[in-house]
Structures are given as C-alpha cells and as structure tokens.
C-alpha cells in the first residue's frame, strides 16, 4: 500500500476504504530517488504532487548569496507539496535529504478526487493545514528561541512526527541529516550546531551519532524549548 502512513495516528480513521482506494488509484508513478536530489524548483509550473513513502525530503529557499534556509523537513507519510496543486507552482525548492521513495499524484487526478470525494478532500486540506501549523511553529522557533532551544525544538518536532508513523520509539530514531542541514533548519552555522549538540549531550538530554538520534530525557528536552506538540494534531 502506497499511503500506509498517510495521516497515520492523526485522522486516518476518517479515511474510508473507498477514499483510500481512490487515493491509491490516483498515483501515476512510484520511484526511488537518490539523496540530495532536486525534485522541484521554485517558480516552475508543476503538474504533480509528491507523497513521501520512505526517506526524508526538505523544502528550502536560498538567499542571494546561495545560503540556504530549510523551511520544512518531511518524513514518510507526508505530502510534500500538496499546496502546489491549487498554487500551480512552488515558491520554494524541494529536494531529498536521504535516499527516498516517492509517489507522484498528477493534479489532474486530484481534480477528479476533489470533484467526487468530499471527505477525502477535507482530509487533504487538513494535511496542508498541518504544514501551515508547522510553519507557524518554525516561525516561533526562529523568532523566540535561543540556539540550544532551537535545536531541541527541532528534534522534539521530528521525534513526534516520526513516532506518529512508527519510526521513533520515543527515544531513538534515524535522522540522516548533517550538521549543515540542522544549521539550515535552525538558522545557525554548522559550528554553532556542533556546540549546541555538545551542550545537549553534556546536559544528558540528547545524542546524535552516525545519523541516529538518542533522546535520554524527552520531557526535559521539551521543557527546555517550551515544546507543545498539539499543533501536530497527533492522536486527534
């Protein structure tokens, strides 16, 4: 099944078998990608939306000097650019962070789903609203949190999202991001990230080793950055 993780532990139970079958039938292609592969370029017209089955994908924007700001990190179960369906083009680039498996849903097929399946339409809309909620949280993170709290917040969010799709047990998960990636997500240099990771390790909150994250005290990590996962609508 392609959409096994779509809205898993969120509102999955509202997705009827018929809606799910129609969604599965809408996929034109499933393909594997390499890590660090550009999938969509800002400004270009797009005719498909991308659903992430395996791996990690980011959305990002580059400044005039080529310095990058990640504006979203997607995990399996996420539609990466469903907002591109009504918009027709993206205002950001999309690239894989790791080797990934993606499903392409043509916008023409989405036209049919929206015309015939109001419940599925509402859930697809819900999915894009989750993205908007995450963007608000990222604004809070970058505008209100200091360096160590920013990175703690990032890890809290990723952990919660991965746990919702069964890829974290609450303390351990794979995250194939470099310190440069983390810096681009948190608005800091990789050297700064390195120091903050050391601080989190010394506080016995979190460790990152060879693409694996171990959180020793999730409650303390959440307290450090005022993290409240309710904006992810997990479990309700």
């Amino acid at each position, binding site marked *: 099944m392609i959409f096994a993780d779509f809205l898993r532990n969120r509102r999955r139970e509202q997705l009827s078998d018929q809606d799910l079958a129609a969604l599965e039938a809408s996929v034109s292609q499933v393909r594997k990608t390499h890590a660090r592969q550009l999938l969509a370029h800002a400004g270009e017209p797009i005719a498909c939306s991308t659903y992430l089955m395996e791996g990690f994908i980011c959305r990002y924007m580059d400044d005039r000097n080529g310095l990058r700001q990640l504006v979203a990190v997607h995990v399996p179960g996420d539609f990466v650019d469903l907002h591109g369906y009504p918009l027709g083009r993206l205002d950001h680039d999309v690239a894989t962070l790791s080797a990934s498996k993606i499903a392409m849903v043509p916008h023409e097929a989405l036209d049919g789903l929206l015309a015939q399946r109001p419940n599925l339409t509402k859930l697809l809309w819900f999915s894009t609203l989750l993205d908007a909620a995450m963007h608000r949280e990222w604004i809070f993170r970058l505008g209100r*949190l*200091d*360096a160590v709290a*920013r990175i703690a917040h990032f890890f809290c969010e990723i952990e919660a999202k991965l746990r919702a799709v069964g890829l974290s047990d609450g303390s351990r998960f794979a995250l194939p991001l470099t310190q440069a990636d983390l810096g681009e997500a948190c*608005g800091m240099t990789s*050297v*700064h990230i390195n120091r903050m990771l050391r601080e989190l390790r010394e506080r016995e909150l979190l460790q990152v080793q060879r693409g694996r994250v171990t959180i020793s005290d999730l409650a303390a990590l959440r307290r450090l950055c005022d993290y409240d996962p309710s904006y992810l609508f997990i479990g309700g």
Partner: protein
Amino acid sequence: MPRDGVFDESGKAYAEEGQVMLDGPDGVAISMTPDAAEETANELIRAASEARQQIDDRESGASGS
C-alpha cells in the same frame, strides 16, 4: 524578562573553531568572524552610551518641566 520586546538580560558569547557565537537573549543565535564580533561589540558599546544619554535627557527634561 522582555518588556515591550526590550530585553534587560544580556546574550552570551562563545568562541568555537574560530567563530564567535552570540546566543540570546531570546531568538538571537548568530555566528560571526572575530573581526565582525569586535566591530559589533564596539557598535553595541557606542549605541548603549547613546541610549543612556537619551534616557538622561528624557529624565532631565521631565524634571525640568
């Protein structure tokens, strides 16, 4: 605690691998070269002196009226 968005706590500065990192208050988290950090420090000291003068001028104006 910030009052009207103005902080009365300082940020903390660190040196790491030839970079100067300024953390806090609040959402400040930047890295600078040593030269940029020194220039920023001088700018901050100059602006702090100017701001103190503005407070003094305001208070003396208030007491004179």
